[in-house]
């Protein structure tokens, strides 16, 4: 069988697997967040931390909960890295330097998992498990919580309550992420992923680093986190040993963002509302897969930075999955991709991580984009726009605009300043247009909380550690606070009845409008920058 046919069949198998779990997992997640009871573990947690699980929060308190929890997470993760030398399983790797520790703490708490460190020489097993793995879970659960709060904004009427962040956070962690991650961690060990507390293993006279990989690998993909336990990430045979494990990991990356559209449709009482979002996400995602696949198949050095066991199709599929979902795990070095292939991965992030986007983040991002799309449609026909029975007035559209524009502003300002700094050329690994792409990719990745890299760029300097850290924070929390403010405004409204003048949001017209808005916003903001980087390289 030719590689292309095998690759296409693999994509079909992935779609089939996602299709099989779409209804049960989507409906299960909807039930988890609408359940009025608390299970025993959850009740114990609430009692220990002294929060009342049955008191609901206004949008501002919910937002303070997200921010407070995240700041606490950054502080604790920073501290753990700074005292690593006294923790077990550090193998003499010592305390992590302050700039790197700050960057890593913000990176994992914001679900970015940008890595300015080489795990095998910097990070011991304790920090990996007690620090990084924990944030892999809770940063994903935070994204889910914010998505659910926004959905409640559409569903509820005449209330200022959006739910309880601590309950949503705990449920997402305990009822969704933990059981799935546990099952798949075991499955990954079956495929050959390692789970060792040793520091290394002898291979024909050389030492190759090992780690407790499997437990982190499962949640790294499932939570669309992406931070590699080992430097080569999912290209490392200990993290991703075969074509089998590769497909399992791609499935894990996609499963929650995809199935969450079902949960959304279920919760708003019209499943078609979810299908249309999935249709838009899937169409753009598949288009980018085609771009990356074809580009990589026609490269000058197609195997540079790729693993032979994956080849072109399985590499392109992983690259599209990881950049379309804000995961950032890689099974190949994107820096060695062709101009067009690397540009495709970059554009996938610049769509704002909503095709299908990260766990929870993808759903709230595309809902915010839907508000923008309906606002544009309203301008065209001269009517007050509505979406899901809620009027989109000044406050709603302002919140949505801030949420959408935060990322492009941060990417372009960050990359622009960096490009003119005197120290920057020395940090680049490749000359010419590709060098600019390395800068652009870094800031796009950080600001979209993706975490993948054109990894040749050296980001150890204080400037990169600090500026990318700030980009991760702004790219994460400005859209979250704006989305929660939007949710608060929506929840306070009464429902407006559907009339003959209501634009239906379940058909191809809305789908085109929404997909068009995603592409248009990205194109209007990024075409000049892309022209100087990947497009210039592709034309060489």
């Amino acid at each position, binding site marked *: 069988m030719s590689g292309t046919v095998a690759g296409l069949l693999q994509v079909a198998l992935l779609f089939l697997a996602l299709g099989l779990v779409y209804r049960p997992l989507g409906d299960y997640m909807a039930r988890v967040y609408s359940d009025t009871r608390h299970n025993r573990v959850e009740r114990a947690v609430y009692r220990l931390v002294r929060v009342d699980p049955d008191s609901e929060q206004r949008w501002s308190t919910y937002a303070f909960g997200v921010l*407070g929890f995240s700041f606490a997470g950054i502080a604790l993760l920073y501290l753990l890295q700074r005292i690593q030398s006294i923790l077990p399983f550090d193998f003499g790797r010592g305390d992590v330097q302050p700039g790197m520790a700050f960057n890593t703490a913000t990176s994992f708490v914001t679900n970015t998992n940008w890595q300015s460190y080489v795990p095998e020489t910097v990070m011991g097993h304790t920090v990996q498990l007690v620090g990084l793995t924990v944030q892999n879970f809770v940063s994903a659960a935070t994204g889910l919580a914010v998505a659910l709060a926004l959905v409640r904004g559409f569903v509820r009427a005449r209330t200022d309550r959006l739910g309880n962040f601590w309950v949503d956070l705990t449920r997402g962690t305990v009822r969704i992420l933990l059981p799935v991650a546990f099952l798949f961690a*075991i499955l990954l060990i079956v495929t050959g992923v390692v789970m060792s507390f040793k520091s290394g293993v002898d291979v024909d006279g050389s030492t*190759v680093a090992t780690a407790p990989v499997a437990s982190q690998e499962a949640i790294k993909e499932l939570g669309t986190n992406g931070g590699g336990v080992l430097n080569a990430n999912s290209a490392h045979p200990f993290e991703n040993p075969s074509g089998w494990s590769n497909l399992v990991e791609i499935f894990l990356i996609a499963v929650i963002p995809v199935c969450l559209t079902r949960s959304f449709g279920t919760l708003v009482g019209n499943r078609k509302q979810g299908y249309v979002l999935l249709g838009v996400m899937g169409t753009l995602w598949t288009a980018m897969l085609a771009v990356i696949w074809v580009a990589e198949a026609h490269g000058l050095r197609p195997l540079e930075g790729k693993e032979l066991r994956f080849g072109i199709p399985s590499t392109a599929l992983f690259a599209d999955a990881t950049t379309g979902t804000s995961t950032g795990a890689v099974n190949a070095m994107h820096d060695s991709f062709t101009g067009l292939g690397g540009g495709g991965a970059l554009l996938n992030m610049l769509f704002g991580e909503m095709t299908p986007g990260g766990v929870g983040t993808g759903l709230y991002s595309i809902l915010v984009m839907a508000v923008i799309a309906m606002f544009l449609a309203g301008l065209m026909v001269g009517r007050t726009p509505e979406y899901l029975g809620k009027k989109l007035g000044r406050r709603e559209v302002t919140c949505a605009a801030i949420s959408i524009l935060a990322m492009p502003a941060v990417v372009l300002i960050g990359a622009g300043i960096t490009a003119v700094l005197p120290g920057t050329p020395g940090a680049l*690994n490749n000359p010419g247009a590709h060098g600019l792409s390395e800068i652009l990719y870094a800031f796009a990745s950080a600001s979209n909380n993706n975490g993948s890299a054109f990894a040749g760029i050296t980001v150890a300097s204080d400037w990169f550690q600090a500026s990318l850290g700030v980009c991760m924070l702004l790219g994460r929390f400005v859209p979250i606070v704006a989305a929660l403010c939007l949710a608060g405004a929506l929840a306070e409204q009464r429902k407006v009845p559907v009339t003959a003048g209501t634009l239906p949001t379940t058909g191809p017209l809305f789908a085109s409008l929404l997909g068009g808005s995603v592409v248009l916003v990205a194109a209007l903001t990024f075409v000049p920058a892309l022209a100087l980087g990947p497009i210039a390289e592709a034309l060489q």
Partner: protein
Amino acid sequence: MKNLLKQTGAGLRVLLVLTVIIGVLYPTAVWAVSRLPGLRANAEAVDTTLVAVPRDGDRWFQPRPSAATLPASGGSNKSEVNADYDTVVAERRAAVAQREGVSPDRVPQDAVTASASGLDPHISDAYAQLQVPRVARANGLSENAVRALVAEHTEGRGLGILGDPGVNVTALNRVLDAAR
């Protein structure tokens, strides 16, 4: 501001409790299951053939070039428009051609490009066949015998569709070790 401080306090408490569940109990549980007889060898990478490291000498099949600094992993991150790296690739091509006694245009691509992990255990069938005469000579084996070993250690696609086929260098070299 007071509300934010209050929420941060609650956040810290929630985080500490969740850390016990997902930062300690969860990995411990996964580790415990990984001690089961069928899984332990995978978990501890016992006699692993998942990674390849270069071995000096004509007796061994050589893996792909590596940009990794052991014990860490990693790729070159060189783009395809990079004149300096073109030179490196050309030098590798010449070196492989000389080692195997063939003309440079017969050297396949995987022999001159660095893998993503720097530990890629596989080489293409073309690169394996190129090395057969040298390896056979150095081990005192017939070329046919070595070719049979190559065929035996060629790994296909999972389910016939997952990933790409390749020859596992580490497994192949272990057999050569044992044959001595």
